[in-house]
Structures are given as C-alpha cells and as structure tokens.
C-alpha cells in the first residue's frame, strides 16, 4: 500500500517540526502534546487504518460481545446471529450513555440502562419505550426514523483469526492494508485453529508511540533486557530480520533465529558491555524450552500492525498485544494469550510457563514499560529537542540485522505522512 492510500483532507500545520525528512530526528513534543494526541485520534484511529480489537475465538458464538477501544473511543465488537462480525461505538444513540457496561458476554440485544432504548448486536435500533406514547400522550414524532438512529457502526473484518475495526470508508481492504510483506508472517503464526488462554494488562505512564518505537527497536533487546545475556539466551550473532512493509512503513516484523555454537559473547565482553555475566544459570531452564512448531526455528517474532497490534511469538509464547492510547502520557497494553487447538498438555503447560517471559512481569520484557516511562520523564520539558535515530543509517537497506533503527525511521516517515506533519 502506498502513501496515496493514506490520503486525507489537508490540515493546517501544527507548529511541530521534524528536523529531517528521513525519520531520524523526532521532536520530543510528539510524545506529550495534547494537540498531537487529538489529531492522532482523528487521523490515525478514526482515519484510514484497521485497528486490532479481538481474536476471533474470543467472540466465537452468536451473540458474543467484547468491549474494547479503537484509539480512546470505546467500541463493542460482536458476533451477530448469522455468524458475521459487527462493531459499534459504545454510545447510546439517544443521549449518549455508555451502552454496554460489561467487558464481555453474550446477548442478542443491548438495552441502554438510562431509558431502555434497545439495539441488536449489529447496532440497529430495535425498540424505544413509549415510542407511541401512552394514553393520548404523544410519544416520538410519527416520522421518527428508527433506521437513522442506530449506533455508530465501524467496519469490521478479520484476517487469520485477528479481528480489526475501522472508522474509515476509504481504507483499503484489510488484507491489502496488512500488505504483501506482512501477511505471510501473520499466516505463519495463525496457520491453524487457536484457543484463547486469557489476557493480562499493563498500564504505562508514557506515550503510546514510545511503545511502538520499542517493538521496532531490535537494538535494545540485548542491552535493556539483561535476562538474555545474564542467562545466555539471545546473542547478537543470531540470524535476524528487520523488515518494514513496502508501503507506508508503519508495520514491521523483527525475527531472531538461533544459530548453534555462536561465539558472539566475545563481542560483548570485548566492548565491556555491562550485560555479560558468565556466573548465573537457571535452576529450571524449562521456561526457555522450545518446541519446534514452524518451518524456521525462530525464537522471536515481533510484528507490529499499525496502530493497535503487536503479534508475538517468543519461544512458544503466543500473544496478540493490543496497544491502546489513554492520554498523551498514558497507554495500556492488553496481552491476549493463545495456543493452538491441537496443543498437547505438555505444550500447553509450556505456553503457560513461558508467560513468565513476557508481559508486565516478563523476564525479557518487564523493562520495556519502564524504559518508555524514562523517556517520557526525561523529555517532558524538552519538546523542541529531538531523539537521535542513526543506528544503521548508512545502510538503510540492510535487513538481516538487529543492530538498526531503520524500522523506527520508517515508522516516523509513515507517521508524518498520516498526520500531515
């Protein structure tokens, strides 16, 4: 998908300058500006994007529903009686009350608590108490059009068992939006029926884009997350990929595949990087077990589908992370864990055990939220200063590396186009 697909009406420029056009300098105010946050809600989350909202298996039965968000707009995604998907803004069409107050459930109709206006699972208005009045008293006007007063509907579609919603009438079809480069990687993980194993949530006092940078930043993996090197897990010498999508560059995939007998720990020791310590080992290494499930023995698969999804395979831990902006300086992550329907009991146990690796208490991920908070705190009054994203700049096409900031630069150029900055 090309930049033209993201075209929207022109907007007056915000007084925010990206010093370079290649995405390598990012003014810190984009992480704290309320004006930026407001524009993101319109141009990104309500703009020409598809936003991950649920796994298909979370709402598998007719009538199943889930309350969630597109950006910071509360939406409900439902399975309708004929098995199709629907999504609507969780705002009553009468006077704006939050309609669905449950996080999940099953219902073929949704009645508003305030005056009992009733809607079907597609969001159509089906009933108004006292619509015809009572005892000669007038009700709603006789020409009141029920069809014109349904809930605000979103487009909704699923790809590979992942459900996305969009406010846009002009966004490309979902498979095209995901794009040729990214689809095979989703197919790789979602290649057979899955089972939902529950979710965990993490709330971070930082801007959501700092997390997006983080999942496009393989450079930090072995430096921030010392678990890797303390216990000898991931090495710079692993076979690596850092690929953006070919269009706007807002999606990306990072993989690491283990190469046996690599000697790259020497590179760390030579550079005196704090992370090497030969002295520690795990008593129970089963947490790092790896059952081969795919053609390539990839231990890390971190794939971002802009703006709300990070699809993850770390060893045998499978997660669809939903990234939700809450305020200029707050985001929430919802980790949707899953396994395959044909998991053996041992493999299922391993997936549960490997939840120790990821999420808010994850051995190799707990620092990510903290790192983004440190950026938020450090840069708060430095809005006109810029971050420096030069790693790998001289070889922009090199993709077989983890020592690069190329995906982050691509993210920022795509972001600027979408935001008209």
């Amino acid at each position, binding site marked *: 998908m090309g930049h033209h697909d993201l075209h929207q009406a022109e907007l007056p420029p915000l007084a925010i300058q990206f010093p370079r056009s290649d995405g390598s300098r990012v003014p810190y105010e984009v992480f704290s500006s309320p004006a930026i946050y407001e524009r993101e809600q319109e141009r990104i989350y309500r703009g020409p994007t598809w936003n991950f909202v649920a796994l298909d298996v979370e709402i598998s039965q007719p009538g199943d529903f889930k309350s969630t968000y597109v950006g910071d707009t509360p939406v409900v995604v439902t399975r309708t009686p004929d098995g199709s998907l629907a999504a609507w803004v969780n705002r009553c069409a009468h006077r704006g009350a939050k309609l669905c107050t449950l996080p999940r459930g099953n219902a073929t109709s949704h009645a508003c608590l305030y005056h009992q206006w009733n809607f079907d699972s597609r969001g159509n208005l089906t009933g108004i108490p006292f619509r015809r009045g009572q005892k000669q008293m007038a009700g709603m006007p006789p020409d009141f059009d029920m069809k014109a007063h349904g809930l605000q509907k979103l487009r909704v579609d699923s790809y590979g068992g992942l459900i996305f919603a969009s406010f846009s009438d002009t966004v490309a079809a979902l498979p095209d939006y995901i794009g040729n480069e990214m689809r095979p990687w989703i197919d790789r993980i979602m290649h057979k029926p899955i089972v*939902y194993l*529950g979710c*965990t949530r*993490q709330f971070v006092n930082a801007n959501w884009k700092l997390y997006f940078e983080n999942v496009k930043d393989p450079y930090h993996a072995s430096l921030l997350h010392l678990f890797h090197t303390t216990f000898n897990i991931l090495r710079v010498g692993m076979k690596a990929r850092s690929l953006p999508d070919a269009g706007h560059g807002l999606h990306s995939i990072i993989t690491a595949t283990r190469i046996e007998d690599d000697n790259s720990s020497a590179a760390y020791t030579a550079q005196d990087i704090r992370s090497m310590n030969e002295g520690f080992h795990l*008593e*129970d290494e089963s947490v790092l077990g790896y059952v081969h499930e795919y053609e390539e023995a990839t231990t890390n698969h971190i794939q971002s589908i802009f703006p709300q999804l990070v699809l993850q395979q770390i060893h045998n831990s499978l997660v669809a992370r939903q990234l939700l902006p809450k305020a200029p300086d707050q985001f929430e992550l919802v980790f949707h864990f899953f396994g395959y329907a044909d998991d053996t009991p041992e493999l299922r146990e391993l997936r549960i055990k490997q*939840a120790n690796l990821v999420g*808010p208490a994850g051995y190799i991920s707990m620092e990510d939220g*903290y790192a983004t*908070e440190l950026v938020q705190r450090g840069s708060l009054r430095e809005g006109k200063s810029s971050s420096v994203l030069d790693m790998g700049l001289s070889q922009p096409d090199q993709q077989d590396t983890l020592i690069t900031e190329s995906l982050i630069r691509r993210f920022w150029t795509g972001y600027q186009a979408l935001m008209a900055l």
Partner: protein
Amino acid sequence: MTPLDQMLLWFELYSLQERYISVLDNDQLEAWPELFTADGHYEIVPKENADAGLPMGIIYCNNQGMMRDRILSTREANLYEPQTYRHLVSGLIITPADQGMVKMSANYVVIRTNQEGDSIIYQAGRYEDQVINTAEGWRYRSKRAIYDTLRVPTLMAIPV
C-alpha cells in the same frame, strides 16, 4: 479438633502468612522460595481470567527452583526502579482439608513506594493457598494471588 487445636492452627498459619509478607516487604527475597515445598506452585493471575477459568497470569512457578530463578533474575538481570512493597493482609479463612493439607484464603493490598517516595495502591486481590506441615514447619504447597487490579502499573519485579 478441639478449640485449642483450632486456635493453635490459626496462630501457626497466621504466623506463616506474616512471615511471607515480611520477607517480601523487607528485602529478604531469597527467603521467599523457602516458604514453599520443593514441588510448590506459585502464580499470580488476574481475576478476569480466574473467573473465566482461563489459565494465564503474569508469574507462574511450578517448583521451588523456578521461584529461586525468579528472585535471581530480579536481583541480577531485571532493571526496574527501586521500590518497596507494604502488604496489608486481612480476612484470613482457614479450612482443613484432606491428608493434613489446609486451605487458606485472605485479602491482600500491596502499596508500592518508589524511590521518590510516591506510594500507590499497586495491587488488591486475594490469596488462595494450600499449606502442609513439613519437618521445617508449615509450607505453601500452592499459592495463587488472584488480583482485582487488572491493569498492572508499569511492571512487576517482586512477587506479591
């Protein structure tokens, strides 16, 4: 069980729980795994998953070695802001079950204080425990922390 036996049991298990929160709140993390049996289970799961019968949580250990690994990682590998927990535990219920095993449940609240001195209610939840009497005294065979505070603020470095 005589009333005196019941009082004694309550006192012993209350003491175990007090010891449990004391080691976590006073930086004696290496003593934490020792309060479990060698095959002990420890997990922290959100209430929404526990209620729905879904298994996933944020920490899961199915033996004491994994608990020692967790503490070793907290000490040596993971990076986080220095912090202190204060556990408030109430509502202890003790239910003797089969073969010397006793079930316990209690409410907990953890207040977390960072190095700038900001204290937050970090997590509220309940413990669901199984304990047995060993040669070293009462030990947890299983401890589940089921938390109501569904959004974990920033990170969890120390068990609750």
